[in-house]
């Protein structure tokens, strides 16, 4: 392709990417470097149906003047990134010095909101992504072997979990696993423990969320694998049959190598999705046991009416960095293979 043609071909995509991806990221990065002006406080008298009271309040006019002068607020550099609600360097440092054993330090470590979210997000991603790839592959193989007549309806049923809105799907399951719900009470009966609750224990909540994640994401992997299966060349398969390869050997030595690039693609997309896990935490009301990066951002934006934009922006940038770190190995590998094939 000529350079000029290529330029015009790519221009709309590039413009959209700059407008909707690059500019917002730059904007939240700038936001994360600033904090609000010191609020000038004055004493105000508040009267309500229950009586009058003197309270400290904010001098609204003085504050508005400050904001007009410098709308972004005070420059804070990277201090928001390293405060206790984010990377917490100071707390970690102090914890390291004061703790005598590793377990003591790890309890300090996992008590910090950012690392609490980190460990859940990583666990979720590391369990869900491989499971989704394996399950999706197995389902695709099974359905590919079905007769043409029933394929359509079965494919439809298989992709239902993906069609259901995440929030709806998780809410339905949430009610079912309630101590009074059908799954919850059955489990209580099975284990003969009336106090057993899927929602109360951290471990069980994590397992529930991960199971939900696999249930919800597998159809995506399935659909991509299924379409890729249609492109598997028949010649090598026939050759393998003549050589006496059984079904497993054909899959292992012909199908899987052919589908490898597709699996890498699914791994990338699925990892990016899983790092941003959010809806199931809300749907399952699991904030007490499981917090993810996206949940931290959400939580910063809801202290009744007050929103901590700077803090939310810092967490967003840290999430982007995290996604980058996790994807690097896969990307580097793909890049190298791309180079070799040239």
């Amino acid at each position, binding site marked *: 392709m000529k350079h000029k043609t290529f330029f015009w071909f790519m221009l709309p995509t590039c413009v959209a990417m700059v407008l909707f991806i690059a500019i917002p990221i730059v904007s939240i990065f700038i936001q994360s470097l600033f904090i*609000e002006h010191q609020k000038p406080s004055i004493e105000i008298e508040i009267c309500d149906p229950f009586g009058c009271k003197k309270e400290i309040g904010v001098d609204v006019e003085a504050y508005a003047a400050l904001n007009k002068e410098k709308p972004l607020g005070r420059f804070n550099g990277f201090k928001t990134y390293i405060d206790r609600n984010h990377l917490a360097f100071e707390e970690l440092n102090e914890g390291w010095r004061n703790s005598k054993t590793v377990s003591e330090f790890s309890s300090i470590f996992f008590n910090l909101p950012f690392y609490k979210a980190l460990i859940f997000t990583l666990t979720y991603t590391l369990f869900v992504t491989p499971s989704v790839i394996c399950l999706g592959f197995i389902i695709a193989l099974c359905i590919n072997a079905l007769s043409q007549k029933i394929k359509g309806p079965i494919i439809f049923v298989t992709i239902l979990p993906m069609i259901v809105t995440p929030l709806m799907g998780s809410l339905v399951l949430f009610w079912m696993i309630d101590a009074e719900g059908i799954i919850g009470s059955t489990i209580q009966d099975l284990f003969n423990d009336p106090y057993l609750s899927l929602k109360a224990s951290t471990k069980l909540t994590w397992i529930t969320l991960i199971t939900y994640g696999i249930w919800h994401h597998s159809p995506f992997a399935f659909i991509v694998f299924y379409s890729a299966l249609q492109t598997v060349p028949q010649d090598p398969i026939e050759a393998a049959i003549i050589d006496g390869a059984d079904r497993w050997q054909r899959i292992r030595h012909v199908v899987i190598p052919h589908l490898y690039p597709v699996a890498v693609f699914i791994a990338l997309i699925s990892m990016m999705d899983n790092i941003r896990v959010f809806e199931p935490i809300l749907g399952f009301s699991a904030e*007490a046991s499981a917090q993810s990066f996206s949940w931290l951002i959400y939580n910063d934006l*809801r202290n009744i009416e007050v929103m901590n934009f700077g803090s939310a922006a810092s967490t967003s940038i840290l999430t982007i960095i995290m996604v980058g770190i996790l994807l690097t190995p896969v990307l580097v590998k793909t890049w190298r293979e791309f180079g070799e094939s040239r």
Partner: protein
Amino acid sequence: MKIFSKITLTSILMFILGHTTYAACGITSGSINILANDFPALRTYTDTAKACAGSGADFKVNHTSEHNNLAMAALSANPAEYSARIGANSSIVPLMNEGLIRPMDDLVAKYGKDLQKSQLITIDGKVMAVAFMANTQHLYYREDILNELGIPVPKTYEEVLAAAGKMRSSGKLLNPYAAAYKAGWNLAEEFVNMYLGYGGEFFKSGSAEPNINNRKGVKTLRMLKKLAGYSNPDFLTHDSEAIKVEWEAGKVGIMTLWASRSGTLLDDEGDPAITAATKLAAPATVGGGSIPAATLWWDGFMLAKNRSDKDAKASFQALVHAATSKTMANDASDQAVWLVEGFKPGPKSLGVLAAAKMGANPYPMLPHMSLMHGALGSEIVDFLKGKESAQQALADTEAAYRGKAKEKGFL
């Protein structure tokens, strides 16, 4: 069904009246768009306002339990998405600090002659909101179970614990106590109530420095945990609606719940035996204190600043009509404690009136209180789950609050 038919009846009546009182409301132009929380009393209130607006103005209302999180962004826009916001103690200060609500002294002077003075929420002498109902959290109990087990109506949380213990050991109820302990806003609200009951102060006087990591804070957390021990094991996921359902299923003998929910508990829906045995009591005290472990709330409306004067005027007229409507206050007397003149408190107002009489604290109207509330909602969870000590949970809350408050310029 009774409530529902009452609401429909009221709205039909209002609709008919609306046309006749059209001249009385005198709204001829402007558009009214209201953001409000979602519970029965507020629906009645906005229906009354809607009837007043009649066909003179464009009328829209958004009832959502997410109102708190929408308000700031919606009112910051210019023109604002909503012309009026129905909010409570907790919501007025943050909005005012950002300069998003307008003083309404002139409108009160012109159209608000029927308002009682106590309805006006003034800040430094300027009317910033008009209140129309009061709310609090108080005890509900099952009279039949208490009588059967010979338990007197509890007045303190210590007695609640004893009563819950008896109910459990008698085998009648597995999880006899319920309160909205859902991690986040609800749980933090329970802490606020209990901490004030122990006589705690959230901040060092005259500053925004947190002050909860003390003996009272520890006692508060321990009491919450003891109560949670008698609750459904899923308590950290239960909000007011969830515990209402548990109550109506007959699984709970004592609970702490909002006064504004009493209407839905005592309506004709559900098991009549449970409804008949559901009784209201004053909010409990704790730790030998005389002030109840509860906060008093008012619900009222505020007007958006970034909206035309015409819309503000129309909204004010419609909402003030409802805030002074004796018909509404009498017809819906079981839905709320209306602050409207001429309201005769019925048996369902018992909780709020008792709380006010016992000297309950209003929810603190401090600009940084919402940050504390937010920090409490996520940081005390680990203690309730038994994963850390009370001191650690309180220290974590203070640290999380400090981070947020520094960023917002309070510290």
